[in-house]
């Protein structure tokens, strides 16, 4: 057990950026919009968070800047998906490309710099609990916020009136419009918030995880988050489990390599992706048997008020 604790703690740390991005995408997809561009949003967030923190010395400002940047880029995706009714897969890929390119271009002068960023703040009392304490309550503040956010979003989506509207617009925008709410506005809001959260996840990488900027530092986490949304069945609390599972694979990878065993690294790096496919497979097989699993009915389908039928 003693050996496992550092690995589990590392899984939480390594899973946190994925958790933020997954939570963001859950919100976006619950509203009926699919944003495949998380990888680009995370990279922009990582850059933005880093550069603002480097300039001001305040990592919180960095996180806020990352959120705003992520939301701003998602505005383009929202405009194309919601207002124009364009293809969301292609638009999402465009977000990913633009974010990857722009962050590389913007960050070229940041390479090699470091920031103080977020440090460990153990939670009093809770961090003293054996096993659970060091695994969950001996981290930086962004990790704690992500716990709160996941449970808050669960409560928000399933137990509040705005949450009900969110689920409704993802299932059937016509109904939401008939209720007198604007389906388009709801989708805009949640696409922006979702993109902002993905960027916050990226800023965790540059402000807490490595405390420096490097090109392409999200290293595929954004794509994993896209898949994790399905793994979590669009449920924020289940996203916690999924993120730490994938974070754990990442953490194990480093440890196994460091331990100098002969287990080939590429095989380990494949694992998250193979695992995602397997999970997707299980979910889809179950869905085929008529088990409802939370996939928004109108996901990825453009809606136009003028053309409802």
């Amino acid at each position, binding site marked *: 057990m003693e050996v496992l604790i550092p690995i589990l703690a590392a899984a939480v740390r390594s899973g946190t950026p994925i958790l933020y991005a997954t939570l963001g995408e859950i919100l976006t997809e619950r509203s009926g919009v699919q944003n*495949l561009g998380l990888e*680009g949003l995370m990279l922009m967030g990582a850059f933005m968070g880093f550069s603002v923190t480097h300039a001001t010395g305040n990592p919180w400002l960095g996180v806020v800047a990352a959120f705003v940047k992520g939301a701003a880029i998602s505005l*383009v995706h929202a405009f*194309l998906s919601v207002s*124009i*009714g*364009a*293809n969301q*897969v*292609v*638009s999402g*890929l*465009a*977000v*990913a*490309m*633009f*974010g*990857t*390119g*722009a962050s*590389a*271009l*913007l960050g*070229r002068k940041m390479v090699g710099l470091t920031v103080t960023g977020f440090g460990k703040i153990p939670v009093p009392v809770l961090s003293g609990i054996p096993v659970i304490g060091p695994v969950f309550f001996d981290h930086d503040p962004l990790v704690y916020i992500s716990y709160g956010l996941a449970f808050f979003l669960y409560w928000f989506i399933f137990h509040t009136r705005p949450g009900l509207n969110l689920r409704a617009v993802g299932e059937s925008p016509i109904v939401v419009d008939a209720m007198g709410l604007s389906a388009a506005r709801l989708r805009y809001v949640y696409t922006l918030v979702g993109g902002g959260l993905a960027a916050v996840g990226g800023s965790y990488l540059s402000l807490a995880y490595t405390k420096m900027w490097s*090109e*392409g530092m999200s290293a*595929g986490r954004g*794509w994993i988050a*896209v*898949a994790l949304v*399905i793994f979590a069945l669009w449920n924020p609390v289940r996203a916690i489990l999924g993120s730490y599972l994938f974070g754990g694979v990442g953490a194990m990878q480093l440890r196994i390599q460091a331990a100098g065993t002969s287990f*080939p*690294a*590429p*095989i380990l*790096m*494949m694992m998250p*992706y*193979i695992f*995602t*496919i397997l999970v*997707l*497979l299980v979910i*889809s*097989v179950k*869905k*085929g048997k008529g088990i409802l699993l939370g996939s928004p009915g109108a996901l990825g389908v453009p809606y136009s008020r*003028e*053309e409802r039928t």
Partner: protein
Amino acid sequence: MKYRVVLRRRFKTGLLFEGVLPVLSVAVALVFAGGALSIFGVSPVATYRAMFRGALGSGYGLSEVVVKTIPLVISGIAVALAFRMKIWNIGAEGQIYLGALATAAVVRYFPSGNQAVMLLTMTAGAALAGGAWGYAAGFMKSRWNVNEVITTLMLNYIGLHLADYFIYGSWRDPSSLGFPMTPPFPPSARLPQFFGTRVHLGIIAAVILVLVFRLVIRWTRWGFEIRAIGDNPRAAVYSGIPYGRNVELVLFISGAIAGLAGMTEIAGLQGRLQPGFSPGYGYTAIIVAWLARLNPWAILVVSFFMGVLLVGGETIQVIMRLPLASVQVIQGCILFSVLGFEFFRNYRVFLVRKESG
């Protein structure tokens, strides 16, 4: 005086419209990307000038553009085939890697001194391996309706790491001084190159594929089935066209074609398998197919244009010391712009004077 905007659905577009719209959307994209570049502290004029001079300003640059056009055409056709049936093969990149991996395997385990034999076995191996990668997604889609966007995307990464596994492992060239790469291929396993440039036999394969794609989609029964499913899957199924079998078949063929791009790339250019030999051709192919609206002739043109961007990207990397990923800013802007202009394809916009009563 008040005006309001009225939208009318557009059902037919003229030839002029079809010709002007893509050019206009790319032009707008270049302006937007230029704006983005200047915000990022890079002079757009200098960047564009360096890019186009590097790509089109010399015979060498031009030949390098053609070299990059080859894999883009091949994988663009691969992706377009699936898109025509509204199947999202985002996995061309992984299929390219599988094709290259199989090519290297054939060279390693079934070497032959005869170039024709070698070419045939490499082609078959690459097509089978890439096809298998596509088929995996197709099988899951047809059996259990597993979302192919996610599976093909994940298979990209699996394919990439699988190639790394061999390159960093048992296939590594012992005399490469620790660099991760397979030993160089024997001359019989290399594609001939033309005109003293790096333009290789793959160019013929690319042109043939364009012609075959046109023929199959337009004039064969299977092509008709693909178009029918792409236009209206439900109607196609009711009229007796097998959906599941076509999904599997199309993704197999699509993957096989993309695998071919992997083969021509390493047998035609590098002559060995190295990590990262494809600078995202499989992803750029998606832009190519989309921008070309799945039209095979347009795929040729758009691939060439993307080739210019890629060679231009390498030029600014060397001359202006900008990261290679900068090109993705331009590519992203092109996609955004094309998507935005789709609106004008679907709607006619009128300004109507409001009667103020």
